[in-house]
C-alpha cells in the first residue's frame, strides 16, 4: 500500500506540467486527421468559382446544397449506389455464411490434414494476391462474368475471407465443447448444433466481421477496375473515379461536384461507423492480436 501511494504521488508530481502537453499533442493530431475531412465537407458546398479562390476560404459564402443534387443527376449515381449496395450486401452475407461454417469445421472436427490446411488459410492472409489476377480475369471471362458484378461477390461465398475463417475458428474454440456434447446426446445433428448453439453465441464476432467486410467491399476499387467496363455496372468507387474524368474533361465546369460525390460515398461509411462504433474497434482489435 505504501509503495502504491508513493508511486502515485511520484507520477502525479511529474505529470502535472506534462498534462498540458499531452492535451496539446492530442488536439494537434486531431486537427491533422480531422481537418482534411472537414475541409472536404465544407468544399462540397462551394461553387465552382469559390474552389479557385486564393487564398482559400474555409466556409462557403452560401452553402450550395444544390451541388449534391447536381452531382447525383450528372452521373448515374443512383445506379452506382445500387450496384455498390448489392455487391456489399452479398459479400457480407457470403463472408458470414462461409467463414462461420468453415471455421466450425476447423474448430470442431478432426480430419486428416486439418493442421496444414488451417496453416494455408493463415498464409493466404499475407500472400500478395496479384499473382492470381490474370488467371482469375481469364476464368471470369470463361464464365461470362466480365462486366458483371459476380466476380465482386461470388468468391466471398467460397471462404474468400481467410480472416473470417480464422476469427470464427478462434471464437468457436473458446466455447466449451460440453455444449455440443449434451446437444448431441439429445439427438442434435452437426448442423443443428452449428445453427442453434454456436451461432447464437457468436453475435459479437459476426457483427465485427460484417463491418470489416462491409468496409472492404464498399471501398474496393481494384477488382472493379479490372472487370467492369460499362458504367451502368460501375460501383460507387469506380463511378466516382469515372465521374472525375468526366468532370475534368472540359466543357461544363463540374469539378465542384466531385467533392459532393465523394462525400456521398463517405457518408454511408460514417453512418455505419457512428451506429456501430463499439463493434468497429472490437473487430479490428480481434484481427490483430492473433494474426
Amino acid at each position, binding site marked *: 500500500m505504501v*509503495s502504491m501511494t508513493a*508511486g502515485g504521488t*511520484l507520477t502525479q508530481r511529474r505529470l502535472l506540467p506534462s498534462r498540458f502537453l499531452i492535451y496539446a499533442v*492530442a488536439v494537434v*493530431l*486531431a486537427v491533422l*486527421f480531422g481537418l*482534411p*475531412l472537414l*475541409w*472536404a465537407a465544407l468544399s462540397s458546398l462551394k461553387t465552382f468559382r469559390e*474552389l*479557385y479562390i486564393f487564398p*482559400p476560404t474555409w466556409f462557403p459564402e452560401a452553402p450550395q446544397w444544390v451541388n449534391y443534387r447536381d452531382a447525383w443527376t450528372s452521373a448515374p449515381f443512383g445506379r452506382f449506389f445500387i450496384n455498390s449496395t448489392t455487391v456489399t450486401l452479398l459479400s457480407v452475407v457470403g463472408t458470414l455464411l*462461409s467463414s462461420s461454417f*468453415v471455421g466450425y*469445421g476447423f474448430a*470442431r472436427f*478432426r*480430419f486428416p490434414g*486439418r493442421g496444414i490446411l488451417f496453416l*494455408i*488459410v493463415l498464409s493466404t492472409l*499475407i*500472400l500478395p494476391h*496479384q*499473382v*492470381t*489476377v490474370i*488467371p*482469375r480475369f*481469364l*476464368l471470369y471471362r470463361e464464365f461470362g462474368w466480365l462486366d458483371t458484378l459476380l466476380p465482386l461477390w461470388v*468468391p466471398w461465398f*467460397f471462404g*474468400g475471407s481467410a480472416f473470417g*475463417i480464422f476469427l470464427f475458428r478462434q471464437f468457436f*474454440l*473458446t466455447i466449451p*465443447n460440453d455444449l455440443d456434447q449434451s446437444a448431441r446426446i439429445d439427438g442434435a445433428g452437426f448442423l443443428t448444433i452449428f445453427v442453434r448453439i454456436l451461432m447464437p453465441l457468436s453475435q459479437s464476432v459476426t457483427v465485427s466481421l460484417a463491418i470489416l467486410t462491409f468496409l472492404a467491399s464498399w471501398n474496393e476499387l*481494384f477488382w472493379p477496375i479490372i472487370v467492369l467496363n460499362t458504367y451502368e455496372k460501375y460501383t460507387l*468507387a469506380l463511378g*466516382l473515379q469515372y465521374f*472525375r*474524368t468526366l468532370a*475534368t*474533361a472540359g466543357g461544363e465546369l463540374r469539378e465542384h461536384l*466531385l*467533392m459532393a460525390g*465523394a462525400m456521398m*460515398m463517405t457518408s454511408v*461509411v*460514417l453512418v455505419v*461507423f457512428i451506429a456501430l462504433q463499439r463493434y468497429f*474497434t472490437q473487430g*479490428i482489435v480481434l*484481427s*490483430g*492480436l492473433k*494474426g
Partner: protein
Amino acid sequence: MTDHAVEERHGSQRGSRPKGLGLERKETLTGYFCISPWLLGMAAFFVVPMLYSLWLSLTHYSGLGAPRFAGLANYTRMLQNELFWTSISNTLIYSLMFVAPSVIGSLLCAMLLNQQIRGRTFFRSVFFLPSITPIVAAMFLWMWILQPKVGLFNYLLSIVGVDGPGWLGSTRWSKPALAMISLWGAIGGRPMLIFLAALQGVPNEYIEAAEIDGASAWRKFISITVPIISPIVLFNTLIAGITALQMFEIAYIASAPQGQQHELGGPGRSTLSYVLNLYIRTFQDFDMGYGSALAWFFFAVVLLATFLFMRSSRGWVFYESTEAHD
C-alpha cells in the same frame, strides 16, 4: 498460448470418448463437408490460377487465341526492361517513406490514447476516421488540398514563408505526396488500435516496480513496454510493408487520365508502382504472358522478403513464454 490450451482440452475430450471406426469416419467426412466451400474457393480462385499463371508466364499470350510457349523469354525481357526497374525503385522509395513512419506514428498515437485523458473516445474516433474513408474520396480531397496553386496545403506553407512544391504534379514530390496521403489514412487505423490493445495489456505491476526504482519515462518505455509489445510491432511492420509493396489504387487515381493530359504512373513515371506497371502491361498492352511473369516475380520476392523479415525478427522480438523462466 490460449489457443493451444483450448485445443488440447478439446482434443483430449474427443480422445477420451470411446469411438468406433464409423464415428471417426463420420467426423472426418463432416469436417471436410464443413470446410468444402473454402476448399472449392481455394482451388478455383487461388491454387489453379497460381499454377495457370506460372504456365502463362512461360508463354506469349495476348488474351486471344492460344498461348504460345516462349520459355523464359518474358523473364529475360523483364530484367532488361527499364520500366520494370523504374517501377521497382518507385515502389521501394514509396515503401521506405511509408513503413517506418506509419508503424512509429501508430505506436505514438496509441501511447497518447493510453494516457488518462478526457475525451479519449473522441480523439480515438477522429484519429480513426481517415482509415475508413474510401480511397477514392480520400484521394479527391487530398488532390484538392495539395493543388499547387490554390490548394490549402501550399497556402498554409506560404503563411510560414515556404514556397510549396507541385506535389502530385511534380516528379520529385509525387511519391512523398502519395506516402503522406497513405500515412494520413493508415496511422490512426487498425495498427493503432492493435497497439492500443497491446499497451493496455502491459502489466501494471512492472510499470509500478520500475517507478519505485526511479526509472524515467523513457527508460520504462524502452525496458518494459517495447519488449512486451515487440511481437505486435513485428506484426504491424510486416502488414505495413506488404501493403506498401502492393501500392496501386492511389497511384492509379492520382495519375488517371483527365482530358488526355496525364498518363498512368505519371508525371514522368514517378508514380509507376510495381503493381501499376503490372496492370498496364496486362490490361492495356494485353501482354498477359509478360504480366504473369511480373506477377510471379513479385510473388516470389514478397514471399522471400517476408521469410527473411520473420527470420531476422528472432533477434529483436521478445516472446514472454520463452523467457519467463529466467
